[in-house]
């Protein structure tokens, strides 16, 4: 059994990536597939049970690590966790009033969207908003301003949730 996956490594170390918000997506994908080739249970279909078990543990970890690093939101959350901070999503204090007012406005726009093109418009606006916010959180992580990053992260969670709700609204329109 190859020893390329150490169960104590953090997810960035697992993929040989620097611990930062910005990740080289191509490198992440490439390394993921390389590791899969080494550890996947189908490679050990006829191996002894102990190896099968190891292979399964490692692949489970690999899949989880990839999923977390692949999406910017879960990556940000993971970085906050690694910094030893409690993202404290449930217990934390109130959101800035301006942000909440903005949320109300987004929600109203979603409720009023009557056709797919209205959703398209909303989605484009949201993508732009997300892009600039992810750029901001990247800068916060880079200058190790974790307090600011936690606050940005909490706002990003609202916005990503909104993106899911837009997709659900689209699904309802299609059926």
């Amino acid at each position, binding site marked *: 059994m190859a020893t390329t996956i150490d169960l104590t490594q953090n997810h960035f170390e697992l993929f040989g990536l620097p611990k930062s918000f910005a990740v080289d997506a191509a490198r992440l*994908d490439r390394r993921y*597939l390389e590791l*899969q*080739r080494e550890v*996947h*249970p*189908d*490679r050990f*279909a*006829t191996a002894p049970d102990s190896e099968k078990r190891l292979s*399964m543990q490692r*692949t*489970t970890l690999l*899949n*989880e690590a*990839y*999923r977390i690093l692949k999406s910017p939101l879960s990556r940000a959350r993971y970085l906050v966790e690694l910094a030893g901070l409690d993202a404290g999503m449930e217990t934390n204090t109130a959101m800035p009033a301006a942000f909440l007012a903005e949320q109300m406005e987004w929600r109203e726009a979603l409720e009023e969207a009557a056709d797919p093109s209205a959703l398209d418009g909303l989605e484009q606006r949201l993508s732009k908003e997300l892009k600039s916010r992810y750029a901001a959180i990247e800068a916060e992580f880079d200058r190790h301003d974790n307090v600011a990053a936690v606050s940005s992260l909490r706002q990003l969670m609202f916005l990503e949730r909104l993106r899911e709700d837009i*997709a*659900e609204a*689209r*699904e*309802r329109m*299609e*059926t």
Partner: protein
Amino acid sequence: MALLQISEPGESPAPHERRIAIGIDLGTTNSLVATVRNSIAGVLNGEDGHALLPSIVRYLPGGEVHVGYAAQAEQARDPRNTILSVKRFMGRGLKDVAYPENSPYDFVDAPGMVQLRTAAGVKSPVEVSAEILRVLRRRAERALLGGSNTELYGAVITVPAYFDEAQRQATKDAAKLAGLNVMRLLNEPTAAAIAYGLDNAAEGVYAVFDLGGGTFDISILRLTRGVFEVLATGGDSALGGDDFDHRLFCWVIEKAKLAPLSPEDTRLLLTHSRQVKEHLSAHAQAHFHARLASGETVNLVVTQEDFWDMTRTLVAKTLGPAKKALRDAGLTAGDVKGVVMVGGATRMPHVQRAVGELFGQDPLNNLDPDKVVALGAAIQANALAGNRSSEEDWLLLDVIPLSLGIETMGGLVEKIIPRNSTIPIAKAQEFTTFKDGQSAMAVHVVQGEREVVSDCRSLARFELRGLPPMAAGAARIRVTFQVDADGLLSVSAREQSSGVEAAVAVKPSYGLADDEITRMLKDSFDHAKDDVHTRALREQQVEAERMREAVAAALASDADLLSAEERAEIDRVLAELVAAAAGSDHRAIKAAIEKANRVTGPFAERRMDRSIKRGLAGKSLEKI
């Protein structure tokens, strides 16, 4: 199979070390068996020289069973005892069966899975499928083992990607009944992608559009240097070529103004419908000509336009899941490099056209849509048997098609593993107790996309017992879901502070114990809106009940902290709360809960002060 033909001497295991493994496509209409020999995948023909085995089983009085063409030949003469498309009944109750009134069968509404009364007794779909598998097993043994003493090492059997656990378990049971060792159930579109991808050395994102006799799957895969990564999958496990036959059948009955039909005439017209449908794939029109048992004749001309018109909605039903799969993969149609068409029903021109429009490109038809799934299964079987040579260096990363979760208070579903997660996967989530001193917690494992438990499929139930007495919400129960590379789910629960544990390997039962075959998936999308309302309502009702119980318990022990006036006020808001919870307006319930919270706030503070004092005095907090 370009990539599979090279075999360096000494690279493959020597012939006597090779394990004989087969791939089986157990289809709605036809079934096949294939294997890899000398690094080349090929289908095995029967003694009659045909590769396809019609998935038809005829039961004769006295116990004789005919399978395949022999059964097909008698289908119109003996419709009750000749079972077609049994795959549509696997793991399904009678209420899930599409248009039973237009089927020639004598259904028995057994709990869990529908059964069929035949001349040889009542048969379950599992038994019928096993007859088909048995014929394929014998075919493989004759071709591959000769008269030697060796045995088949194992089989990979394909299933629609969108099959749920009950349907998968039924398939496994059928294989076991037929004496096969199932190494893995492989998703049909994935099998097709493996065969297509290896054969064409394909790279990039591909969609596999698989419309078979009874099921529809859409899978989006990324192919990167021999790694087949399933990004998303979707479909409809009750949509296929049979439904197109049925639309034509109904059209004919209406046009020809036919009286209710005998089983014989039903089968006759269904068979004609299928033939006319196939003819219309290559011709502008067809003659529907049949002579019924009464001597009455049906004589109609059907044009392509007629047929496309009557089946337009069926084609449209494939497009929603296709768009959804793209979205789940985080891609758009423009990212898809090729659309591989699989399944006999994709031969229909209007299906081809709709798929072409959706993806903005002509679909790929350069493979045999009937055989490609069996070939892919054989290639995977060969690999799992440990026979692959270094040239066969490919890997499959598959996903679970449906979300897995547990039931929470109020009959709601908390998803633990979302659909389209790459397996193997493990996920844990913490839950807590609902009542003070609760000593056990029931864990109900469900599968599906809906938010309400009764709309999802129940997979397993177990109990975590022996929890130490704690206040409601104080216990921390970690529920872990693990799905291995074979797609098998195991669930465990552990209370974190006491270490109390319970676990179950999930094997869905559809037998006498479990009559909860639900309508679920197919209407998953239609009900998204209802779900949101139902969910909100139940959440508030649960919350209201929790509130009422907590206040009642507090009053029982500490009512002396209240003045008569305060007590009356609390009783009044509680009555309001109960009244609101009995209604169906979740906002009203929420308002009543907030009011009760406000009114009981000072009481709660006084109770807390008292309990702290008692605690300091060395008394047990549990007694308060």
